């Protein structure tokens, strides 16, 4: 190709404009038809209609398949048709393939504009409105109307600008809008990056002109959508769970509640039973870590062991459920599921999300107060639509404050749009897709995000589902009317704040820095178009907000109705309607997915192993009746997390030993039948919090802005000591994506991408290296040694017993005490050889004791919970 100036060089390179192609007359009718008839029409014809596509006539070809056009008018290279051909995915493997020459022919034909002699194609508003959104509404739309021009709809386009009309129907050459684009004045070139908007391509401009020249045809009526069939919807997880009767059979003493009945029925079939009941010491340690993330103190252990009342265990459960640490522990599980982080990620700067922590505190408070899960979800999905908070007459009371903070749920994912250069429409669509993935995996256990680019291969999730779902959120997540991260702060007017706000919020008000990272409806959503292959350059049909197809399989879906909200700013009410469906007692997924995840946190694996996938590619439940019974029970008990947990932990199943008997190993090798409790390693937060608690360094400070970390010269990230001394619980340490404390990261604290439904459980040498060599860990052990000496003076046996009991929860045998005593003596000798003669006995002893404490922190009995 010769290089010459004056030609739009880039355009010439990437796609040959129509004018250049006119010379050689390559039409569908000349060579392409014969080829398609021979190799494609066998499946894509009027009757077989594979993929909703008929390739037997010009008209049918231009109509496209079930997801819209297969030939892209604006950019031929983006054509679904061409991509399939070039990737050799079509024709399918088992059919006769295209030769290289044939592929070249099709490529030629498509890249020269896919021309038909018998041209049946008409450009309508359906193609033009999304084009104007993509290229123009940034400055001529909802937030700005430069020159008084609004290009969001055909009607507003016809109104023109302050200076007059911008289109002359039937004459594109005389239309100002076309002239401005042709003159390269729109968009202004130097504004492209600051405004994060790209110029119209030649192909798009051609479409726009054709549309104007042919009289600005309106969009065609809605296409008849292919409905998911009853057969496709006939799947267990799409139907409302029901409580069928409890299984009969024996079990007798081993049945504490119905959970046991379900489990024993299956175990019995294999001739198995539960393992023996665990000791009280094992139970209190297990229960404390599971419910609070911390071990019991020696005093707590002894009180429980000595409690002879028949309901001693139940009292213990209730005490732990009421402890403030319960909220912290179970908040952490939820924060994983939603992908909580205190920074934006996406860009190297990893900018801190300054006010995100209000959401973390909200989650802690919600679990502490046992907020019904139904309400908890509603607030998080649509808290801003629950109340008319913009109304100047409305005091911001605690429930309103909580609901607004709750919307931080949809603000968690990595987000690079705070910089102009990474704030184009595709970048924003990535953010929205991530949020919908969080919603899908954490709340509904469905893989909606797969439908962003194509119909789901296995589940009845047509591509339309993803875009109907996006439309439900469009009032707040609008890729054409985007709020950059720093604009997502809701500043609450101080004069309207009620007295009953949470303490940390009141502190923030006092310090004049109350803002919350939130999501809110803005009352002016853009229309939503299906994007072929997820590509904003190839919009398809316009879609209305609505539920996924699978909602039709249960009665909850039938009650769905979107009602606009007559608030201070008019709101669409779409998310509120959606949250009503999500939390409908008849919803088939919400309760099941949550109950299953709670079960997994306690029993080590889900009844459905794939916690985030309840679709057809997910694992089937091992105990379907139990899952349904629990789900219905959960809803009946007002969606109470605490009652659900209480039910689970008071079962006989939960009180089993974790010992693997030879019989259970043979009959239930993977513990699918729950023939024992799993042996569990501490989670990252508990590793750190336990060391701090054991060494008396754990601060009681709670809530509020996240506590800092420091980065050492060698790359180690350490949490910082608090100003008032001690270290905060891990949940209150800043969760900056690029600066997760090394100790926690090493023990599998997740990289949120975008969220984490189940933690990994790795065993790597870095863990051993950190616990054995890290100076901070050792410093904590030194502190413990000093305090043990203070407390027990010279009574070494008492000291050893206390250390053992507080670290392991059990009582040492006297032989074990002797072993540790002997170890201490030998340590002292080693220290003595090294240190000068003058070193006092006291110093030598303290050093040896510190090493013993350090050994304890490194031992398996410390790290594992039976």
């Amino acid at each position: 190709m010769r290089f010459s100036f004056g030609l739009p060089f880039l355009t010439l390179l990437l796609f040959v404009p129509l004018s250049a192609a006119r010379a050689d007359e390559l039409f569908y009718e000349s060579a392409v038809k014969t080829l398609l008839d021979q190799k494609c029409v066998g499946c894509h014809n009027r009757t077989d209609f594979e993929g909703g596509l008929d390739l037997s006539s010009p008209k049918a070809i231009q109509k496209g398949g079930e997801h819209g056009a297969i030939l892209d008018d604006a950019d031929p290279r983006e054509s679904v048709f061409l991509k399939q051909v070039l990737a050799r995915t079509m024709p399918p493997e088992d059919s006769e393939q295209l030769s290289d020459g044939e592929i070249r022919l099709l490529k030629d034909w498509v890249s020269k504009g896919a021309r038909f002699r018998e041209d049946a194609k008409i450009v309508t508003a359906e193609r033009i409105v999304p084009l104007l959104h993509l290229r123009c509404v940034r400055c001529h739309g909802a937030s700005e109307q430069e020159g008084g021009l609004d290009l969001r709809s055909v009607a507003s386009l016809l109104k023109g600008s302050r200076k007059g009309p911008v289109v002359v129907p039937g004459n594109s050459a005389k239309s100002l809008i076309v002239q401005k684009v042709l003159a390269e004045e729109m968009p202004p070139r130097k504004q492209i990056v600051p405004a994060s908007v790209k110029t119209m391509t030649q192909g798009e401009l051609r479409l726009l002109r054709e549309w104007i020249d042919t009289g600005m045809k309106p969009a065609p009526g809605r296409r008849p959508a292919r409905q998911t069939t009853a057969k496709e919807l006939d799947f267990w997880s799409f139907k409302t769970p029901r409580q069928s009767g409890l299984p009969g059979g024996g079990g007798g003493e081993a049945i504490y509640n119905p959970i046991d009945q379900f489990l024993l029925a299956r175990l019995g079939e294999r001739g198995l039973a539960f393992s023996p009941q665990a000791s009280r010491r094992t139970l209190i340690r297990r229960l404390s870590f599971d419910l609070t993330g911390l071990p019991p103190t020696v005093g707590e252990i002894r009180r429980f062991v000595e409690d002879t009342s028949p309901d001693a265990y139940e009292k213990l459960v209730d005490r732990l459920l009421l402890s403030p640490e319960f909220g912290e522990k179970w908040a952490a599980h939820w924060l994983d599921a939603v992908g909580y982080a205190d920074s934006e990620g996406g860009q190297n700067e990893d900018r801190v999300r300054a006010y995100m922590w209000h959401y973390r505190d909200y989650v802690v408070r919600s679990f502490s107060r046992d907020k019904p899960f139904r309400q908890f979800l509603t607030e998080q999905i649509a808290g801003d639509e629950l109340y008319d908070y913009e109304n100047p007459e409305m005091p911001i009371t605690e429930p309103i404050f909580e609901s607004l903070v709750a919307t931080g749920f949809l603000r968690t994912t990595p987000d690079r749009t705070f910089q102009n250069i990474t704030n184009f429409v595709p970048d924003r669509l990535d953010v929205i897709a991530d949020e919908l993935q969080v919603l899908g995996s954490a709340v509904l256990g469905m893989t909606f995000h797969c439908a962003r680019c194509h119909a789901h291969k296995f589940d009845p999730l047509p591509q339309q589902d993803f875009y109907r779902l996006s439309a439900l959120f469009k009032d707040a997540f609008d890729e054409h009317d985007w709020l950059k991260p720093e604009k997502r702060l809701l500043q609450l007017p101080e004069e309207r704040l009620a007295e009953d706000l949470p303490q940390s919020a009141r502190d923030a008000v006092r310090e004049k820095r109350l803002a919350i990272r939130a999501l809110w409806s803005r009352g002016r959503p853009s229309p939503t178009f299906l994007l072929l292959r997820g590509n904003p350059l190839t919009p398809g049909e316009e879609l209305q907000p609505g539920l996924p197809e699978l909602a039709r399989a249960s009665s909850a879906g039938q009650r769905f109705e979107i009602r606009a909200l007559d608030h201070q700013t008019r709101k669409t009410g779409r998310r509120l309607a959606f949250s009503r469906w999500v939390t409908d007692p008849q919803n088939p997924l919400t309760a099941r997915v949550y109950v299953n995840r709670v079960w997994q946190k306690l029993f080590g694996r889900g009844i459905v192993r794939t916690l985030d996938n309840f679709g057809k590619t997910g694992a089937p439940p091992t105990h379907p009746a139990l899952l349904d019974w629990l789900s219905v029970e959960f809803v009946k008990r007002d969606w109470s997390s605490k009652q659900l947990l209480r039910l689970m932990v008071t079962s006989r199943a939960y009180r089993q030993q974790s010992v693997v008997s030879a019989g259970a190993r043979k009959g239930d090798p993977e513990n699918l039948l729950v023939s024992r409790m799993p042996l569990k390693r501490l989670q990252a937060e508990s590793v750190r919090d336990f060391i701090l608690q054991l060494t008396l360094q754990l601060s009681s400070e709670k809530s509020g802005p996240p506590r800092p970390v420091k980065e050492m010269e060698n790359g180690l990230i350490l949490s910082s000591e608090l100003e008032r001394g001690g270290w905060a619980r891990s949940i209150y340490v800043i969760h900056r994506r690029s600066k997760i404390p090394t100790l926690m990261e090493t023990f599998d604290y997740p990289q949120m991408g975008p969220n984490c439904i189940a933690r990994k459980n790795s065993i790597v040498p870095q863990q051993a290296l950190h616990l054995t060599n890290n100076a901070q860990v050792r410093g904590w052990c030194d502190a413990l040694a000093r305090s043990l000496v203070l407390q027990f003076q010279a009574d070494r046996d008492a000291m050893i017993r206390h250390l053992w009991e507080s670290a392991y929860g059990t009582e040492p045998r006297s032989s074990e005490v002797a072993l540790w005593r002997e170890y201490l003596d030998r340590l002292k000798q080693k220290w003595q050889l090294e240190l000068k003669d003058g070193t006092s006995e006291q110093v030598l002893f303290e050093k040896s004791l510190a090493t013993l404490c350090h050994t304890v922190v490194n031992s398996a009995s410390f790290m594992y919970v039976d």
Partner: protein
Amino acid sequence: MNLAEPNSERQDRRSFLRSVGTGLQTTALIHLFRNELRAFEGKGVGSGFDAPIPDRPPRARSVIHLFMNGGPSQMDLFDPKEALNKHHGKEYFNQIADEVEFPAAAGALMKSPFRFQQHGESGAWVSEVLPCFAGQVDQVALIRSMYTSNLTHEPAIYKIHSGVEFEGKPTLGAWVSYGLGSENENLPAYVVLDDPKGLPVNGIDSWQAGFLPPSYQGVRFRGQGTPVVNLKKGFQEPDAVTELERAFLKKLDASHARQRPFQPQLAARMKSYELAARMQVEATDALDLSRETAATQRMYGLDDPATESYGRRCLIARRLIERGVRFVQLFIEGQIWDNHADIGKSLSYACKKTDRPTAALLADLKQRGLWDETLVVWGGEIGRLPIAQLSDDKNPAKSGRDHNKNAMVSWFAGAGIKPGISLGQTDELGFSAVENRVSVEDWHATILHQLGIHYEDLFYERNGLKERLTGVTRPRVVAEILS
């Protein structure tokens, strides 16, 4: 699944890998402990783990990835453009306005400030700023037609390392160590040698394991001081005390495990403590460059302050490969190739720092017989524009070049690579790759191919998807550069 009697090494590895799983109770120590774990009885919990076994003979045993963060300028290094000399000074901004990061500073077309010459038998064009590499150009396969999908560093760096433009996905090295493990159980499979002068853009994200078990993430080795975080004691304690503690801990843990039969993670954890101790020795040894002859040290440029730092890392890379590390990745200070300003000086600086060590690494691999089993890959995350980026005072002598996603260069050398060829063409201005275009996915597929892995076989099931390095794309292996 029967693990008892493997009938072949490969079959054994396959069933072993499948059996380990990534379930909640299971360890994920594949690359470090596969021999030991093989002995465990019973199935691992959970599936979703389906690491591939090479189904073709791998050409490469190890990979050294010389990552040139910042975006080396193709038209100033390997892709001279006559048209730029001819049209130097002509306005071109409007034609590419969408493709410029800093429109306000966009200048006219700019010729390269450097002279080019053809080198070796292949006659490849190399810029005067790479004199040492010019001597090796017959050994490499140059790709001049690569392109990527985002012109900004962060997304482009995520893309080149993990296949997508955002964080959270496993990186190439993590995928490779997940798929193949290490050949030395005392060293990690995936080692990162970053520049002591500072982390590149995206920091540690560039070697994350994403949703794979964290054991597959790159382990940072530092060229100086303590090579690995926490590798040495961070506090004072006599060795005798340390040894005593280690022995006593082993005793305690053994007794704990004895009381809990059939819990494989307890044995695995004890092994990890032993490995940690061995790693302290072996990693220290691998990084001890005093064992290299003075001639070798000189060859890598350890005698010159300009090349000392990068030379040290190139030499360490060779030592790690020799010891069976699977994937070594070298980073370089900040965004050294991000030559927005004064490209005459700033690009020369980056070349000066890396040219001699890089050429030495190639020559050294060759002379030590490591050439045929080591794949060396060089390249950045983006390329640069044919137009100038102006300085604040608009002094043309201080111009640089802005980012470009449409054309970039990369080269391959070593195992199974056809030496002395140049693949692909850019347009006359060097703005966009036009012939034999190679995408990032193609580039990934080619590296995996050389390791004996088909990109489609390397996946991890998550949230209903078979996640792959190459996503849902159908990349092509760049067969033209393979021998």
